[in-house]
């Protein structure tokens, strides 16, 4: 084992794996999706037209459900889940626990504030739909609605991207070796958010909103592919140990072909497989986005 280490392609190979497994992969996927959909919903609310509001509502609901599932995943993954609050409140002093140079610490605050604001945005949306008392509709209107939308937009982008920072602030292979992971996760999060909004908003919301979300998904998929190529091209001698085996196959087949190229084809030729082309493409994008997190997290974990 020591002989192997002596030829390690990077100093990151001397470290131990934190054993972040499938729970964290799910969390990264759902967190990215939540952030992406809140960002897109905020964009539609702030810069779109009145007819976009129905798609924006879909975005907030998706973000709320996704963060409600992914937050607990983070807690379950702790070795001492009953102490999760130690990340928010200093257990010894009762003061707030904030460490601006620790991405997990910042991330916990992003997740908490994000959950609060998408909850408020969703309350406003539910009131508009008449599902809860009218009074809450104020959360979706006027300056208050704009402020909530703007916070959701900004926190959404931060939520989609910070997980890359969590991985970068280690000394692990790939995560610490490539500076592109944060950007990759951000793009993939927005793309997954767009795909989820297409699945739930397609046929039920304004055609103009669907077209814009569809466009955004195409752009983010293209950029994501570009970033993936840059990562692969700059990994050098790390490429073999990381992606030489099964994770390389998952990356090429699952992420690139199934999760990006086929959806791009369907978006480009929306009648290719009948009227279901768009939702099919969106579902494939979600699969690709999940597999991307699996490849990035688990290919490093096994070293």
């Amino acid at each position, binding site marked *: *084992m*020591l002989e192997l*280490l*002596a*030829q390690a392609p990077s*100093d990151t190979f*001397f*470290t*131990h794996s*934190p054993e*972040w497994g499938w729970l964290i992969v799910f969390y990264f996927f759902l967190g990215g999706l939540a952030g992406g959909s809140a*960002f*897109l919903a905020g*964009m539609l609310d702030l*810069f*779109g037209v009145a007819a976009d509001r129905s798609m924006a509502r879909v975005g907030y609901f998706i973000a709320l459900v996704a963060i409600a599932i992914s937050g607990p995943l983070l807690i379950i*993954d*702790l*070795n*001492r*889940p009953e*102490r999760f609050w*130690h*990340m928010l409140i*200093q*257990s010894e002093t009762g003061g707030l*626990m904030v*460490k601006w*140079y*620790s*991405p*997990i*610490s910042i991330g*916990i605050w992003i997740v908490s504030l994000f959950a609060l604001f998408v909850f408020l945005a969703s309350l406003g949306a539910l009131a508009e739909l008449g599902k809860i008392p009218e009074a809450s509709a104020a959360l979706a209107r006027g300056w208050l609605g704009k402020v909530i939308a703007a916070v959701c*937009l900004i926190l959404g*982008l*931060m939520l989609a*991207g910070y997980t*890359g*920072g969590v991985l*970068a*602030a*280690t*000394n*692990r292979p790939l995560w*610490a070796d490539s*500076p*592109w*992971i*944060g*950007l990759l996760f*951000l*793009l993939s999060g927005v793309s997954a958010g767009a795909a989820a909004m297409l699945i739930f908003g397609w046929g039920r919301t304004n055609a*103009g909103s669907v077209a*814009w979300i569809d*466009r*955004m998904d195409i*752009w*983010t998929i293209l*950029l994501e592919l570009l970033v993936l190529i840059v990562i692969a091209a700059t990994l050098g001698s790390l490429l073999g140990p990381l992606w030489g085996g099964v994770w390389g196959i998952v990356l090429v087949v699952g992420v690139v072909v199934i999760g990006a190229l086929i959806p791009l084809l369907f978006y480009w030729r929306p009648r290719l497989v009948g009227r279901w082309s768009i939702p099919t493409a969106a579902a494939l994008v979600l699969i690709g986005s999940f597999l991307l997190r699996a490849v990035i997290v688990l290919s490093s974990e096994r070293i």
Partner: protein
Amino acid sequence: MAQQSATPAATTAAPPSATPAGGTPVPLASIPPASAYAPPGAFPPEPLGFYTDTSVCIGCKACEVACKNWNGLSSRNGGVNTLSGDSYDNTRRLDGQHWRHVKFIEQFSEDRTNGRWLMMSDVCKHCVQAGCLEVCPTGAIMRTEYDTVVIQADVCNGCRDCIGACPFGVIDINPVNNTAMKCTLCYDRLHRGMEPACAQACPTASIQFGPIAELKQRAQARLEQLKSQPRPESRPEPRLYGADESFLGGLNAFYLLDDEPEVYGLPNHPALPSQHLPANVGLAAVGAVGVGLLGLLGLRKRRMDEFAAEARAEQISDRGATDPGMTLGSDEEAPHA
């Protein structure tokens, strides 16, 4: 004992100076020094650490045993009772229940008639700039008055970020209490004026404990002694690892090595986790702005297309109004061409 040169603080810890009564502001100079808070008999607060001279390690593992003994760590090896097949090393690595680990490196020719053993007792480096401490989101990892790095087991919630952040692969989860654990440089013993258990047990003074400044002098002298001895040309020069500030601000547990660091499983340029952040965050921030702009452009284009469509529709309906029989107007009539 040669390797214990730090002296207990009973005599050196100054008592708090008298503070003026009656609510007068306390001048800074009169605030008691940190040593005043140390328990009686503790070492005075100054950087303490280990200097490990690998050239005299004999691989007896007394340090491993003493460490487990003093710290109450399980010796069941996590239930693993198979041999590793990796030389005489069966504890395999540092982790939550192995806070000292003796590495065995065999450098032999094919037929094993020629060669040498390298042995090294590995431990937490108590980095002056510690990656584990930097990333810990609960504040469980703290720096002590001895400039050592200690994990508070009652605060740690097992997020495991420190495991991947340590550049040396030191920390892991202890399966007994399910929190991240590692060497404390026997913080409890230091508070009683006792040297760490491993250093006390080491029979060859390979592990030496004391004030860092003094250890560095000792290490330098030993390095010069080794360099002055004849050695085969092909053999790399001995060197100190972590004794200067070339990485992580220096290591409070530093080494004298008889070969390249990688041979001992040590990284050549260990980095602080935060060193990787600026590029990562910068690229993500540029991406965030870019995606936002793309969205705005998309919405703008959509509005333009709608205006154009409306204009076309108006044009058609205008023509329809002038000549109800016509569905398409002539060019001269186009008002917004």
